[in-house]
């Protein structure tokens, strides 16, 4: 049993080395995070399935085809997206947003093109029956996966250490500035690394139907989290460290599946969060100056915030709340109105954190879900009325926020990814069949006993009022001025006497509270839902898009974002979720590339207003 777990762990882990290898190469050379890596892998898997179904092509023959094809596709993609991205002030952060959009775009396009049903290739194609090694029966595909991974890692090693371009690539990984100064054509080297990264994703994808059992268009994000876990374990930016990361990951997964099977799915997210917190730079990285990182000034241009006075902001908030109050009298689609209010609140809640501290919470939906389930559990188990259950929801979101407060020690992309993984972990706990007695697991909850559409609408409106109030407070108070100072330079802010950590933590908790209470209002209003609904990553995506579209750190920006984009979305009457995902994914890409500071920055960009 143990031997089986160990052998399987190493083989499985080697496959995940291949999954992470390309991602790590891209990060190492460009310091950007390709959140669409898993989606390229998914496309590789579909290619293999198609080649097998159409031409009966053996996956091992499909492998070089996929690798080459994706390599060739990656090249122009670099010049289309990444070259522009690298010119921006904070490429790492912006890359997260851009590739997040691209990931959604690819997923939606694939769902539209291939359908959402599962694809697979019969395992027998790669050899019948298991291979028996010292009494452990291991499936053939795992051997192929491990073998292909070993070959690829060897090829990458030879390329990096024996070829001229590889040598230049290592120089760029070592220090981009110095490479630039010594006349290396950074774009050519980066394009090569990006293309190889995409090629490796395609190659890994060919074996995905075997290693993951089957593929659907939505596997991308899960694969990404796993790939991140692997490369963070093996040290970010060190492609060969990925081998170590893959093996550690594979071993832990197999041991967990052997001895604690129902919780094994939690492993990637928990490991990712855990490792990032304990070894923020990976297991192989020297821990030397980790503390000094904390004080590095943010590179994102802090938004100046709106120019309006407190009076104008209060007037805007009052007008918005009046519209929310009158809405139900003028318009009959209550659910749509309710969704508007929820998204207005969520966008402002995310704006609190992102706009005023620069932390981008990719797992924001986790708080929304925690609030929804805090409310549901209080109603189901404590038999509380809705009002008290709302308080419990707030406490649940704050509790989760407190639990995740150590994440604030991470910066930029690390924080965003760790937060995403943490939210994923919460979802996996809540929806775990083993917890059916507590959360009803994947079967969803029904709160019809407290169903009250008007009251829950009013609750959502109150949450919105609170969120608007918080934003106005941060825009016009000394507390908010301190936050802007922290965003500009945390060390100077500390020397000005500002308690940097405490102040960030406070905004983080307030932002979590807004999402949690919004989630509670959602649970109350919907009253019957599955765990997927409140934990949907699309919720985070929408909130991010609305804030980015309108402009963060402003009051009107996120409001504008919700009204225009969510309004547009409903006006067009897009009923298929894939199409909205497609449009929003595309919009995120365009915003990240051309208007990273939102519409509110447009007049300034066009030179209509002085600096």
């Amino acid at each position, binding site marked *: 049993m143990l031997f089986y777990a160990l052998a399987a762990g190493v083989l499985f882990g080697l496959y995940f080395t291949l999954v992470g290898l390309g991602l790590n190469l891209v990060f190492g050379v460009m310091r950007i995070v390709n959140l669409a890596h898993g989606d390229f892998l998914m496309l590789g898997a579909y290619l293999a399935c198609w080649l097998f179904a159409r031409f009966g092509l053996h996956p091992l023959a499909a492998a070089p085809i996929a690798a080459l094809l994706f390599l060739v596709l990656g090249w122009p993609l670099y010049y289309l997206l990444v070259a522009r991205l690298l010119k921006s002030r904070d490429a790492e952060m912006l890359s997260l947003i851009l590739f997040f959009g691209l990931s959604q775009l690819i997923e939606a396009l694939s769902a539209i093109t291939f359908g959402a049903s599962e694809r697979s290739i019969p395992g027998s194609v790669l050899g019948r029956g298991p291979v028996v090694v010292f009494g452990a029966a291991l499936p053939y595909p795992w051997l192929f996966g491990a073998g292909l991974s070993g070959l690829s890692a060897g090829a990458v090693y030879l390329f990096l250490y024996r070829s001229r371009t590889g040598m230049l690539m290592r120089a760029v990984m070592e220090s981009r500035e110095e490479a630039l100064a010594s006349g290396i054509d950074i774009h050519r080297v980066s394009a090569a690394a990006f293309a190889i990264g995409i090629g490796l994703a395609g190659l890994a994808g060919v074996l995905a139907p075997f290693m993951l059992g089957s593929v659907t268009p939505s596997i991308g994000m899960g694969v990404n989290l796993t790939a991140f876990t692997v490369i963070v374990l093996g040290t970010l930016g060190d492609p060969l460290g990925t081998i170590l990361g893959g093996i550690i990951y594979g071993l832990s997964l197999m041991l967990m599946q052997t001895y604690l099977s129902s919780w094994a799915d939690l492993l990637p997210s928990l490991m990712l969060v855990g490792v990032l917190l304990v070894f923020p730079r990976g297991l192989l990285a020297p821990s030397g*100056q980790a503390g000094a990182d904390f004080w590095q000034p943010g590179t994102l241009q802090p938004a100046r915030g709106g120019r309006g006075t407190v009076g104008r902001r209060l007037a805007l908030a009052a007008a918005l709340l009046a519209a929310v109050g009158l809405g139900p009298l003028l318009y009959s689609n209550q659910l749509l109105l309710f969704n508007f209010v929820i998204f207005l609140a969520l966008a402002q809640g995310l704006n609190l954190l992102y706009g005023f501290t620069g932390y981008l919470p990719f797992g924001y939906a986790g708080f929304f879900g925690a609030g929804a389930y805090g409310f549901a559990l209080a109603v189901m188990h404590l038999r509380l009325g809705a009002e008290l259950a709302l308080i419990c929801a707030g406490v649940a979101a704050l509790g989760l926020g407190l639990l995740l407060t150590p994440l604030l020690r991470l910066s930029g992309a690390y924080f965003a990814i760790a937060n995403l993984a943490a939210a994923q972990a919460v979802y996996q706990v809540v929806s775990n069949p083993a917890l059916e007695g507590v959360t009803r697991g994947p079967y969803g909850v029904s709160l019809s006993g407290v169903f009250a559409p008007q009251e829950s609408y009013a609750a959502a409106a109150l949450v919105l009022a609170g969120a608007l109030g918080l934003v106005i407070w941060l825009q016009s108070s000394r507390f908010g*001025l301190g936050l802007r100072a922290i965003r500009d330079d945390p060390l*100077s802010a500390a020397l*000005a*006497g*500002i308690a940097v950590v405490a102040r960030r933590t406070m905004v983080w908790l307030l932002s979590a509270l807004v999402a949690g209470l919004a989630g509670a209002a959602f649970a109350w209003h919907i009253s019957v839902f599955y765990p997927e609904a409140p934990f949907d990553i699309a919720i985070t995506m929408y909130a991010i898009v609305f804030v980015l579209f309108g402009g963060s750190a402003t009051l009107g920006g996120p409001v504008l974002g919700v009204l225009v984009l969510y309004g547009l979305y409903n006006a067009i009457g897009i009923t298929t979720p894939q199409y909205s995902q497609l449009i929003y994914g595309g919009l995120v890409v365009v915003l990240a590339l051309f208007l990273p500071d939102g519409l509110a920055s447009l007049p300034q960009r066009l030179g209509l207003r002085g600096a």
Partner: protein
Amino acid sequence: MAREKTALLRVEGLVKRFGGFRALDRLSFQLARGEALGLVGPNGSGKTTCINVITGVYRPDGGTVLFEDRSANGLAPHLLARRGINRTFQSPRPFASLTVRENLEVAAAHGGPDGPRSDLQALLAWLDLDAVGERLAAHLTSAQQKMLDLGRALATAPKLLLVDELAAGLTPAELERVARRLRSLVEQGVALLVVEHLLGFLDRLADRVIVMNAGREIFQGTLKAAARDPLVREVFLGRA
């Protein structure tokens, strides 16, 4: 300078390691109110690390820092700032998106040991920044940003001010003004620790100097005496 000189800052056996490298190796010294101490030494000798440890950027790996006879070891920078320890940076780090005045307001609002100072207009004038008070800090010249860095520190009314390479890149006329300003702070009773390469500038300011090499003190005394010290000469000029 009839003021009685009691030790405001006592540094005893300070050690700071980065991996296997000892950036500070059992450094000890004292600094009194109204005293200006210079810290000199070749690049990498540990001068800036010393400032970083005293201001809480790094936690020391050994030794103690006593400020007003209370331990200041490993406290967060904002707590040290509130107790009266502040600094400037080699390359200034102002709040770029805030105006010059807001830069000082933020520091004044969160205060130093005796509560925030209220005379920000006077401070701006003293720093020759009164004409650019409403300008964004990002749009200042680098000499102005240095003054703003100093202003941000002074807005918290520090008792101990650590100045890291303030003179580099300033014109002779600016140097003269800055030296006079710092000297007047010392005369008001502020303790000054100055890391400086420009020895002429340091000579105008510091009552005595510590010469550092490889994280250790190799000399303590007046700058003139330092120039005659054989070990100091060896470190600076190489073995003759």
